[in-house]
């Protein structure tokens, strides 16, 4: 039952620590629905700092390269439609692009056996953020299937965002988070990671990570040094 599978995928998603493993799991998951490939792409205009356009993908490499080289994100009719609506879009052989370039993209996609697909826009408060786009040769999704893929896509992208944030080492000199400061205060009063984990009721490994992050941010090599720097920069009180 695909609904059960979907809820299982959602329940398990927080267990993933490695983005590659999560992407593989999502690929396996969408295959159950008859979808062949997916891509999470960032369709926003390239203003400001350059950013990765593709968050994750199992698209055929050649199609991905062509899409990027020819800047198809600008004329792709699916992307264009999703800029105007905050709801998933089903596209297929009967989709009309309304212009030559758009039609060409749809035709070229079918060269890679992507004749139809389901695209989920993820909107943040600033507008369209990414599109989770799934393609297939034969579209077999019913309404419930579409709902399942929509929900799973939301959870997938949120999880990838969190993993990306967690796996990015904090830049030196950046602020301590409330939890990092809290742990450092306990370190300052001589508590071990295990003792802190008991006090705060969180895992010992988590305490260790908070303290390590604090050391990196404070540019300290030892815990004692970290405490001293944090006190002198008024991030914790003496």
């Amino acid at each position: 039952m695909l609904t059960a599978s979907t809820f299982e995928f959602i329940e398990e998603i927080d267990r993933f620590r490695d983005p590659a493993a999560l992407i593989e799991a999502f690929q396996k998951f969408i295959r159950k629905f008859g979808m062949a490939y997916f891509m999470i792409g960032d369709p926003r205009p390239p203003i400001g700092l350059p950013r990765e356009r593709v968050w994750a993908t199992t698209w055929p490499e050649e199609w991905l390269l062509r899409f990027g080289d020819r800047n198809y994100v600008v004329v792709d009719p699916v992307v264009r439609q999703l800029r105007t609506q905050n709801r998933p879009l089903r596209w297929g052989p009967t989709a009309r692009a309304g212009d030559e370039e758009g039609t060409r993209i749809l035709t070229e996609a079918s060269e890679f056996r992507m004749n139809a697909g389901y695209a989920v826009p993820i909107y943040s408060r600033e507008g369209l953020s990414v599109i989770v786009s799934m393609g297939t040769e034969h579209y077999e999704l019913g309404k419930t299937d579409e709902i399942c893929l929509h929900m799973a896509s939301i959870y997938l992208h949120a999880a990838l965002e969190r993993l990306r944030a967690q796996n990015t080492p904090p830049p030196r000199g950046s602020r301590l988070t409330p939890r990092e400061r809290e742990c450092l205060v306990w370190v300052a009063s001589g508590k071990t990671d295990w003792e802190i984990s008991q006090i705060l009721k969180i895992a010992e490994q988590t305490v260790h990570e908070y303290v390590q992050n604090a050391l990196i941010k404070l540019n300290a090599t030892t815990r004692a040094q970290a405490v001293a720097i944090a006190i002198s920069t008024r991030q914790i009180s003496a």
Partner: protein
Amino acid sequence: MIEVVTARNALLYEDALRDMHSLRHRMLVERRGLNRLRKRDNLQSDRFDTADAIYLLLTEDDGTVRGTARLLPTTGPHVFADVSPELCDVKGVQRGSRILELTRAMVDEDNLDRAGVENARNSVMVGVFEFIVRAGYEKFTALMTTDMLYRYLVMGIDVKPLGLTVERGGGKQVAVIVSVDQNAQDALRLALDVFEPLIHYVGAPAGDPLALAPPRIPARPLEAAE
């Protein structure tokens, strides 16, 4: 500030509660066009506005109600259980002494500008989280837009769906259960930049079953020194 109103201190809040029902009428009937909720006296209330309901009222200094939320114990009658259980048909209706149901959460869109609406919404959200932690609850259930679901997930808040999405209010909504602990409250405050305690519960007689623990608020992050 957010004032907590229960059956035990409601006498102090007669006017405020009437303003709350008026706000609900304006937002649900006038703004959203839910005519089946229309009442002649322009005060929206329903069978879940009982003595068991806990109201959170976002008020200005002069007592004007700018936002509201209703929390119902899931051990008794509540909306998911009695009106729309089909929304929870995958995981089932969630009941427990530490689970509240959040409904009728809204802010005064007639009298607040865009920034005011956003601030008010953020305050109500933080207020819900702060209340749940301080009152010793653990989770709340609600019908949430998929956009809101995504925002919470990115903040690292534990939100799980209870059923499939449905079409509501021009978009997609889903019944969810949200786990709220101190970490989740901290994450929400950090994300929404709300660092003061909001919740006040006053006027209840001694021995009131609702006892709020003191607020634990993370300090606003300081800028790192050069």
